[in-house]
């Protein structure tokens, strides 16, 4: 089944759902309960020191977000094997978001420098495999950037929802 057709469906669904609840929750309003296409599921891989803490900061600040992301905590983006993302897609993730400390702020001083080279290549290869840009993103969010985390998540989820749930054929 083609991305396009998904898009149209999901678009319609999202549009229908949007007004019903807090912006954050619109996508997941029609959960299994109320039929409709399933909400998109997104894997977030975040480093313990910056982005995980940043997500905490967002929580403490009650910054509403879409509920589609499931975070996996790793000590450092340097620990993230590109295969994690590919594996997530293989297992049926609709999107993958990786986030760590801003360059220079790595708790282990160098981890994210190695990581960003891998991620950049990973991103380009993922698109090469026919997985649309909107479905993969890597970025930096620091422990104090609660609002930025909210923004990143909201935008990313919106992008993935445009495409809707993914029917990966090869990965």
């Amino acid at each position: 089944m083609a991305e396009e057709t998904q898009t149209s469906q999901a678009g319609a669904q999202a549009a229908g759902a949007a007004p019903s609840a807090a912006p954050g929750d619109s996508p997941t309003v029609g959960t299994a309960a109320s039929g409709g296409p399933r909400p998109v599921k997104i894997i977030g891989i975040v480093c313990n020191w910056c982005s995980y803490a940043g997500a905490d900061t967002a929580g403490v600040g009650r910054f509403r977000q879409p509920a589609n992301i499931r975070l996996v905590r790793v000590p450092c983006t340097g620990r993230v094997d590109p295969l994690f993302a590919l594996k997530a897609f293989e297992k049926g993730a609709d999107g993958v978001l990786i986030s760590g400390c801003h360059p220079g702020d790595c708790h282990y001083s160098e981890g994210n420098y190695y990581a960003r080279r891998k991620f950049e290549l990973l991103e380009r290869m993922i698109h090469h495999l026919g997985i649309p840009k909107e479905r993969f993103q890597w970025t930096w969010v620091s422990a104090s950037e609660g609002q930025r985390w909210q923004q990143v998540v909201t935008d990313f989820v919106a992008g993935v929802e445009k495409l809707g749930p993914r029917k990966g054929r090869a990965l």
Partner: protein
Amino acid sequence: MRIGVFVCHCGTNIAATVDVVSVAKRALGLKDVVHAEDIMYTCAEPGQAAIRKAIEDKKLDRVVVAACSPHMHEMTFRRCVDNGGLNPYLFEMANIREHCSWIHTDIPVATEKAWDLVKMAVAKARRLEPLWSNEVEVNKDVLVIGGGVAGIQAALDLADAGLKVTIVERETTIGGVMAKLDKTFPTIDCSACILTPRMVDCAQHENIDVMAYCEVDRVSGYVGNFTVDVRKKAAMVDWTKCVGCEICVQKCPAKAPDTFNVGLEPTKAIYIPFPQAVPKRAAIQVEHCRWFTQGKCRVCEKVCPADAVDYEQKEETVQKRFGAIVVATGLEVFPWEEYYHEYGSGKIKDVISGLQYERMLSASGPYGGHVHRLSNGEGPKTVVFIQCVGSRDDSVGRPYCSSVCCMYTAKQALLTKDHCGMDTEVYVFYIDIRATGKGYEEFVKRVQTEFGVKYVRGRVSKLYEEEGKVMVRGFDTLLGEQVEIAADLVVLASGIMAANGAKELAQKLSVSYDEFGFFKEGHPKLRPVETNTAGVFLAGACQAPKDIPATVAQASATASKVIGLLANDKLKTSPMIAIVGQKDCVSCWKCIDVCPFGAPERQEVRPGELKSHVIETVCQGCGVCVATCPVNCISLKGFSTDAVLDQIEEALLS
């Protein structure tokens, strides 16, 4: 495998948006889960007791708590599990508060997500293994970065506790901003009088080594064993010989900007910031020295009785080892000239910053405490203070309150009356008065009533010169009308910023900082002086704007934390580090290439056969090597590849 799941209500924090009861119920259906319950406050004693009980009754070998962020309570529950007789690392947390209940409103949605997070935690728990931490020797010396009142206080407390302390100060003297102040609120006692004795104590204390005019270049290592490169800047004066007689300063023909007096009056190219400087040693500002700029002069060399001047002096770097680091880099005053054009961009002579006014008031300042107009030297008849310049102002990117300006403005208003006579007209434009400290509110009241300082609630929109006066146009929000005051002197209560270079230092120390460059504490309430980097502590305004009492209090708090840390001869290291499965190692040495800490080494397992081996005490557990190892034979304890993959898989099952 016998897993127990505990889902926390956290009062209504979680329960209001997540149906914790149902989540707990469903958890019972998970593979390997033999016990699941919901608890009102899991972190409270009854909650912890319930966990310990379950471990005993149900013979649990893994514990999963779904509650707040692990950054909040992971340690708490590790201890709890430990007391319950289980290895503390057989514990996993699901963050269903910060990452769920607090950011969602729709109950079914939040509950569904919480359920996923619990599943993921259980999946990870299945992959957990018991871990035992290691012990390392502890170096008991302490590095204090910054010699302001915070650094001084911390250093003295630590030194009195018998620890060897090194203060690294980038200026030629310790004392920091407090040394520049005239009086302190609310007691109006002389700032120098209370600070300088402590500076001297530092100089004389057998346990304290003051390294002035030095900067921290590189920091490596970890709690208990830091290695620090300290760069001694070239003063062009041999401080072992210099006696601080100031003859060179008197004779030096070249003028140079005086940072200590905030640019009010120039100093000399060779200078000693102020009479009570510690150490009292001269240094040359080469960019202003005639010898270095024009190749002639050398007057200071000729007049120096100790022949300490050394134009050839080079900066050198020394390496020192410490067990703990206290950061006390303090503050910088907001450069209002660059932002407040409506206040004249610094082009109007009689508009000065609060700190400049302190120097003007100070008896040891460039004017011997004579308050006057910089335009014509006359004593001011009307003085206007404007608060919140560079504070609480989004338009200049400074939304935060600098917390000291209300009080120092009140103090300066009072001192103005004191110096220039009670008949002087003194106005203060303010947004709100924040006088929350002990005796502060009373002090402000006195300033308003006894000293008749006129407080105008409102902001000033424009300063301009007219007939030799500075016209202050503002809006009185209480009268609801525009007011215009012809002032002789205008003092701007410029706000507080993190010190220059704070960000770079934070990166060297790998501690996190906020968007304004203030260092981030471990937890805003529970770990106010620690950072998230073990062994690095905070004191004073480098963490957030503070007044002197708060700074000193925090410095002592930090000292006590350091003393507590260094009371141990050995430290337990985190066991969550990398380990090489040498059976599978193909000796490609990629791990050695990428490790930021040099933890992996070549180990001869059999004659002629080298395999990688991670030195436990050096590894910090970042896992870069794990992601790099092509055969995945390096595993990161607590974050094994299987654990990660299982979490991903679990999250996607539905």
